[in-house]
């Protein structure tokens, strides 16, 4: 079998993604990429197996960065701290208590009048667009809604949100590569430093004056469950903020694109809004806002005739798995009455996304509000994508009214 010569990650643009995934699933479902220095898995069954494997761990970038910092004589303190938070969050023994703490804290958001406040915010954004005749459903709808929710949760002042959002968008590119470049990690280190410092200050202020926001609750729960330093806690908060903001923004604007591209789907949902949860589930499956996650195994595992050794990085292509025809019939279309397996939008197994329910709620609300605007339609220059490949939101999704 001839080796695939392309770099699947660089070439995974929205236009070519489907073709490349199909080729990989068909020809090389378990593929060791020298370019990525990792195994690449694309079939639903294989991806699902590794996600749920009892010996699977989240890929640890921190140890790579420590070695890079040492051998390259680079100061990557903040980025290593950020990645160490992810490692602690996703590996025993911290995994369980930190996950419990964050899940419990996130539950608080439902007692903060979030649905009403988010709906009001969506109405305001759409009304502003309607007055101007145009709206960017990415930068002017998906992004601000996602930022509003996570900002509300943490109790971040509105004036700080824009800057924090920009830093989060920088830092999330850490998930673009298993092996990042020196210039990239230096840039990421600056973003990590600024965000961690911000959350250290926010935590300190909540220690002084505790409130009813998520940060105050996290501080109390951390004291109860973890007994960790505020610096470590700031790392968890930074990760949570970064992971929640950009992925949900991407999901909202991507779902809006799917809706506005499909008139029959839009008509069906307008006629029968009870189908909205199924439709959003399918939109998320098609989009898969996080296209891949990386894992490592504690033991050797044989898959599709290939031996994956313990410790080797494994890139799990969630986007490819979610369009695998072996798991989903008619995989490239939203099928509202689908009876297939659970999609892997939020991964699966012990590291399944903590914010899955909240993110789904945000997308549903954003799409429901769009359905109330029957005259909105995509402009001819839409969509414009970012050049990122993993968490790759729309840069621009211009739409007009009337």
């Amino acid at each position, binding site marked *: 079998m001839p080796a695939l010569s392309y770099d699947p990650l*660089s070439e995974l643009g929205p236009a070519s993604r489907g073709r490349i995934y199909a080729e990989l699933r068909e020809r090389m479902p378990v593929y060791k990429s020298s370019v990525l220095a990792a195994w690449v898995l694309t079939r639903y069954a294989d991806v699902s197996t590794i996600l749920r494997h009892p010996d699977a761990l989240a890929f640890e970038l921190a140890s790579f960065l420590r070695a890079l910092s040492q051998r390259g004589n*680079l100061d990557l303190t903040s980025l290593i701290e950020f990645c160490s938070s992810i490692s602690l969050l996703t590996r025993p023994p911290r995994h369980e208590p930190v996950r419990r703490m964050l899940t419990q804290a996130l539950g608080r958001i439902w007692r903060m009048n979030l649905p009403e406040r988010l709906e009001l915010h969506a109405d305001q954004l759409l009304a502003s667009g309607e007055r101007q005749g145009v709206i960017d459903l990415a930068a002017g709808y998906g992004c601000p809604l996602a930022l509003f929710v996570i900002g509300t949760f943490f109790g971040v002042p509105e004036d700080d949100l824009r800057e924090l959002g920009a830093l989060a968008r920088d830092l999330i590119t850490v998930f673009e590569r298993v092996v990042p470049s020196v210039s990239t990690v230096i840039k990421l280190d600056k973003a990590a430093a600024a965000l961690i410092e911000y959350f250290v200050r926010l935590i300190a202020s909540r220690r002084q004056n505790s409130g009813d926001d998520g940060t105050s609750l996290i501080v109390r729960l951390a004291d109860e469950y973890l007994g960790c330093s505020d610096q470590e806690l700031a790392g968890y908060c930074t990760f949570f903020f970064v992971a929640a903001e950009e992925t949900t923004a991407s999901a909202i604007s991507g779902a809006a694109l799917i809706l506005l591209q499909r008139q029959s789907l839009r008509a069906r949902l307008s006629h029968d809004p009870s189908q909205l949860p199924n439709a959003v589930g399918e939109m998320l499956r098609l989009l898969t806002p996080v296209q891949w996650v990386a894992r490592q195994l504690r033991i050797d595992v044989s898959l599709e005739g290939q031996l994956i050794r313990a410790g080797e990085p494994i890139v799990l292509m969630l986007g490819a798995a979610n369009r695998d025809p072996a798991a989903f019939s008619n995989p490239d279309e939203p099928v509202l009455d689908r009876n297939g397996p659970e999609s892997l939008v939020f991964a699966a197994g012990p590291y399944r996304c903590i914010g899955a329910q909240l993110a789904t709620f945000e997308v549903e609300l954003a799409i429901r509000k769009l359905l109330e605007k029957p005259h909105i339609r995509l402009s001819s220059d839409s969509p414009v994508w970012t050049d990122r490949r993993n968490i790759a939101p729309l840069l621009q999704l211009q739409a007009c009214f009337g």
Partner: protein
Amino acid sequence: MTTEETLAEWVRDHVAKVRDVVRESITLDQWFSSYGLDSVDAVVMAGELEEDFGIEIDPARFLACDSFGQLITTLAPDIDKAGERRVRS
């Protein structure tokens, strides 16, 4: 000296320094793993090349090669282009 020759000298110097061996023992048909080097060393080397030659290098391009010779052939055109841009500006 051509760009490829300059790069070959640079690679020999770099690997000899990192592995603490004599530069004459470095052959260009070999690759990182032959000298006990890994992907971290590749990223460090890519970073130093970026600095010394004023080009941007995605580590993926490094990792796609299977010898220093192939790496040199891959990078030389980029370095020439960067040089032309500098002359023009």
